[in-house]
C-alpha cells in the first residue's frame, strides 16, 4: 500500500517521510504526556515522585505516601479533553428522540413472530430485537421466553424526559450499552443528521435518580472552544448566594485573551441556549447562557467535594493528554508492609554483613580485617553512588546489595588464597603479596566481567524492580573491584612499610 498517496501532503511526499512524521508525532505524544503527567502530579503534591518513560509508549509513575490510590488513578488516567459545545434546541432534541422511539417501535411490532423467535438463538449478530430485549442474554428459547421478550419490547422506553427537568433526556443506566449500539445504526445516524444536522449524542457525567438514569445530550459536533485556551483553573467552594451551588464545590476557569474573546462571542450570540461543558466526551454541565460572558471566566459547578474540584482543576490546568493513557500495570504497597519489608531487608543486610565479616576474620585473621574494611567501604560506595544517581532504595535494590556483600569478598578470597599459595612455596611476604595480587587480578577481572554482563542484560531487558536490582549489582561489582584490589593493597603496603613483619597474618 502506498501510504504517501493517502496521507502525504506538500511537505511529506514519500512513504518514508510520512512514516517519519508519524513516528515523530507518536514520540512527541508520549513526551508531552510525560510533561503533562509530571505537571498534574506536581500539583497533586506528592513528595519526590518518579516519572519516567519506558520504551516507546510507556510511562512509569512512582509515588510514595499516597493514601488514596483511587484518586491518583483518576488524575493520571484522565485525558482531560475539555470542550465547549452548544446544545441543540429542545425542539430538535425532542423531534430526534421521537423519531428514534418511533423507529424502534416500528422494528419491534408483533406479528413478525418468525423473526422474534429466531433472534434469541442467533447470538452471533446483534439484531435489533436482541438489543431491545431486557434480558437479552439470559432469556430462554421457550415460548414463554419469547413472549416475555415481546412484552419487554413494548415496555421499553429507551428515552424519556426527566421529570425534574423536561429539557433533559434520560436513558436507564443499565441500558446504556444497548443505547450505544442503537446509536451506531445507520438508520439512527440518518435520523440525527436529518433533524439535527451535524449533531451527536453525548452522555452526561453524572447519573440521576439514584444512579438509575444517565442523561444524554444532543450537541453540535463542532467545538466552540477547547481546553487549550485555559490559563488557570482553581477549586473553590460554591457561592452561598446561589442555591444551586450552595454546599457544592466548583472549578473556576480563566481563559487566555483569545479564549476570552471567543468565549464572549459564543456566549453573546447564543443567549438562552445551553452550552455544554464537556470533559473527555462526557457532559459535565450544560448551563443555559443568561448573559454574554466577557471577562474570560467560567465556572464548572456542582462538584460534590473539594477534592473533586481540586482534581478537576489540576487536570484542566495541566492540559489535555495528547493521547489516551491506559493503566496497564499497577502496584500498590501499603505503608506498614512497605516499612516492614524495607526494615526486614535492611536487617538481613546488616546481619549478613556481620556474619560475613566475622567469618573473614576467623578465616584470614588480620588480613580478614583488611578485607572487612574494604567490604564496609564497598557498601558505603554503593549507597552513595545510588544516592547520587537519585535511585530509590527498593527491596530488590537491598537484595542486590546483600548479594554484593557475599560476592564482594570473593575478590579478596581469590587474592588471599593466592598469597597463601605463594607463601607456601617459600616466597617472601613482599613477593607473595605482589604475586598474589598480580595473578588473582586476571581471574577477578574475568569473573567480574561475566557477572557484569549478566547485570547489563538484566538492566536492558528488565523493568522496574529488576532494573533496580541490576543497577545495584553492577555498581557493587565495580565498587568491589576497586575496594578489594586497590584499597586492600594500600592497607597492606602501609602495614608492611610501617614496621618489619616476620609473619603475615593471613
Amino acid at each position: 500500500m502506498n501510504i504517501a498517496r493517502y496521507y502525504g501532503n506538500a511537505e511529506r511526499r514519500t512513504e518514508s517521510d510520512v512514516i517519519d512524521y508519524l513516528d515523530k508525532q507518536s514520540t512527541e505524544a508520549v513526551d508531552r504526556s510525560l510533561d503533562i503527567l509530571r505537571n498534574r502530579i506536581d500539583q497533586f503534591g506528592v513528595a519526590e515522585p518518579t516519572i519516567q518513560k519506558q520504551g516507546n509508549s510507556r510511562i512509569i509513575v512512582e509515588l510514595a505516601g499516597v493514601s488514596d490510590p483511587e484518586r491518583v488513578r483518576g488524575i493520571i488516567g484522565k485525558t482531560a479533553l475539555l470542550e465547549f459545545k452548544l446544545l441543540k434546541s429542545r425542539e430538535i432534541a425532542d423531534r430526534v428522540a421521537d423519531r428514534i422511539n418511533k423507529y424502534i417501535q416500528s422494528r419491534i411490532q408483533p406479528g413478525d413472530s418468525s423473526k422474534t423467535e429466531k433472534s434469541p438463538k442467533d447470538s452471533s449478530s446483534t439484531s435489533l430485537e436482541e438489543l431491545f430485549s431486557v434480558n437479552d442474554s439470559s432469556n430462554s428459547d421457550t415460548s414463554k421466553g419469547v413472549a416475555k421478550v415481546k412484552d419487554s419490547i413494548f415496555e421499553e422506553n429507551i428515552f424519556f424526559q426527566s421529570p425534574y427537568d423536561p429539557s433533559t433526556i434520560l436513558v436507564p443506566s443499565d441500558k446504556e450499552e444497548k443505547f450505544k449500539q442503537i446509536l451506531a445504526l445507520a438508520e439512527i445516524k440518518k435520523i440525527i443528521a436529518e433533524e439535527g444536522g451535524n449533531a451527536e449524542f453525548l452522555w452526561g457525567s453524572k447519573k440521576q435518580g439514584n444512579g438509575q438514569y444517565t442523561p444524554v445530550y444532543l450537541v453540535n459536533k463542532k467545538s466552540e472552544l477547547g481546553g487549550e485556551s485555559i490559563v488557570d483553573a482553581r477549586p473553590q467552594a460554591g457561592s452561598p448566594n446561589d442555591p444551586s451551588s450552595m454546599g457544592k464545590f466548583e472549578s473556576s476557569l480563566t481563559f487566555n485573551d483569545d479564549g476570552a474573546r471567543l468565549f464572549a462571542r459564543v456566549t453573546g450570540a447564543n443567549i438562552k441556549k445551553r452550552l455544554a461543558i464537556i470533559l473527555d466526551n462526557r457532559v459535565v454541565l450544560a448551563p443555559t447562557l443568561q448573559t454574554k460572558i466577557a471577562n474570560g471566566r467560567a465556572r464548572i459547578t456542582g462538584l460534590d467535594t473539594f477534592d473533586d474540584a481540586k482534581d478537576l482543576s489540576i487536570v484542566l490546568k495541566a492540559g489535555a493528554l495528547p493521547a489516551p493513557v491506559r493503566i496497564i500495570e499497577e502496584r500498590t504497597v501499603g505503608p506498614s508492609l512497605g516499612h516492614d519489608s524495607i526494615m526486614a531487608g535492611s536487617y538481613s543486610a546488616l546481619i549478613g554483613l556481620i556474619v560475613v565479616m566475622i567469618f573473614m576474620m576467623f578465616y584470614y585473621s588480620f588480613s580478614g580485617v583488611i578485607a572487612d574494611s574494604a567490604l564496609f567501604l564497598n557498601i558505603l560506595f554503593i549507597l552513595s553512588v545510588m544516592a547520587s544517581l537519585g535511585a530509590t532504595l527498593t527491596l530488590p535494590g537491598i537484595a542486590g546489595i546483600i548479594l554484593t556483600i557475599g560476592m564482594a569478598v570473593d575478590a579478596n578470597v581469590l587474592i588471599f588464597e593466592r598469597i597463601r599459595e605463594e607463601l607456601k612455596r617459600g616466597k617472601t611476604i613482599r613477593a607473595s603479596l605482589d604475586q598474589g595480587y598480580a595473578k588473582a587480578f586476571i581471574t577477578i577481572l574475568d569473573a567480574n566481567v561475566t557477572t557484569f554482563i549478566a547485570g547489563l542484560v538484566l538492566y536492558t531487558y528488565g523493568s522496574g524492580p529488576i532494573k533496580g536490582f541490576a543497577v545495584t549489582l553492577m555498581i557493587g561489582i565495580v565498587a568491589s573491584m576497586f575496594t578489594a584490589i586497590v584499597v586492600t593493597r594500600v592497607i597492606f603496603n602501609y602495614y608492611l612499610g610501617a614496621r618489619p613483619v616476620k609473619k603475615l597474618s593471613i
Partner: protein
Amino acid sequence: MQFFNNAHYDIVSKRKMGYFFSGTLILISILSLILHGGPRYNIDFTGGTFIQMKFQKDIEIQPLRKVLEKAGYSEVELKHFGAPNEVAIRAGVEHPIEEVSSGIKAALDKAMPENPYSIERIEKVGPKVGHELIIEAMLAIFWAMVLILFYIMWRFEFKFSIGAIIALVHDVTITMGIFSVFNIEISAPIIAAVLTIVGYSLNDTIVVYDRIRENLRTMGKNARDITEPVNRSINETLSRTVVTSLTTLFVVVVLYFFGGEVLRTFALALIIGIVVGTYSSIFIASPIVVDWKTKKA
C-alpha cells in the same frame, strides 16, 4: 584456618558419577516441568491481580472463599500469607484488572464487617504486560548466555565456553526444576535471581578455567592428557570456591529467614542456584572440558 589444605581429590576420574547425578536431577526437573505444564508463572507473567490483606483478627480461608464465591469470584486463589491474619488473593485476567480489587473489597466490607482489614499490597498486571515479560525474560537469558559465551571464547577457548554453557544450562534447568517440583511460582524477581545465578555460576567456573589455563601454560601443553592439570586446578581453587560460596550463602540464607515474605522465594532461588552452581563448576564445567579435549585431540 584453612579448608582443603593441600587438597588432592581425583575429581576428574570420578566425573561419570557427577554426570550421572546431574543427569538424574535434570531428568527429574524436565519431567516435573512437563507434568506441571511448564513453570508455574505468577501474575507478573500471566497478568491478573494480586491482593495481600491483613485482617484485624485471624481468619479462616474457607469462609472467606465462600464470601468471594458469592460475589462472583469463584476462580480466585486464596491462601494465608505469612501470618494467620494475612491473606493473599490472586485473580486471573478473566476478571478485568480495573475492577477486581474494588469488587473484592466491596464484598468483604459487606460480608464480614466484624473483621476489618487493611490492604497491604495490590499488584495489577495487564495481560499484555505479562506476556511481554515472558518474552523479555527469555531474551534476557538468551542474550546473557550468548554474550558470556563470546567473552569466554575470546578470553579462553571454544571448548571452555562449551563447558561453561553446559554448566549454565544445567544450573538454570535444575533451579527451575526444583521450583517446579515444589510448585513454587515464578515471578519477575525469580527471573532476576536466575540471571544472577547465571552470572554467579560462571564466576565460579571461570575461576577454575583461569587456573586451568595457567597450569596448562606452566606444566607445558601436553595435549594428550589434560586430566592432571584440570584436576590440579580444581583442587587448587577448591578452597576459594567453597569460601566464596559460603560467604554468599551466609547472606542469602539470612535473607531467606529474615528478609520477609516478599523476598523469601527470591532468596530460595539464590540458595538453590548457588549450591547447584558451585557443584557444577567443580563436577561438571571442568570435567566436560577434559572429555571434549580428549575426544577432539
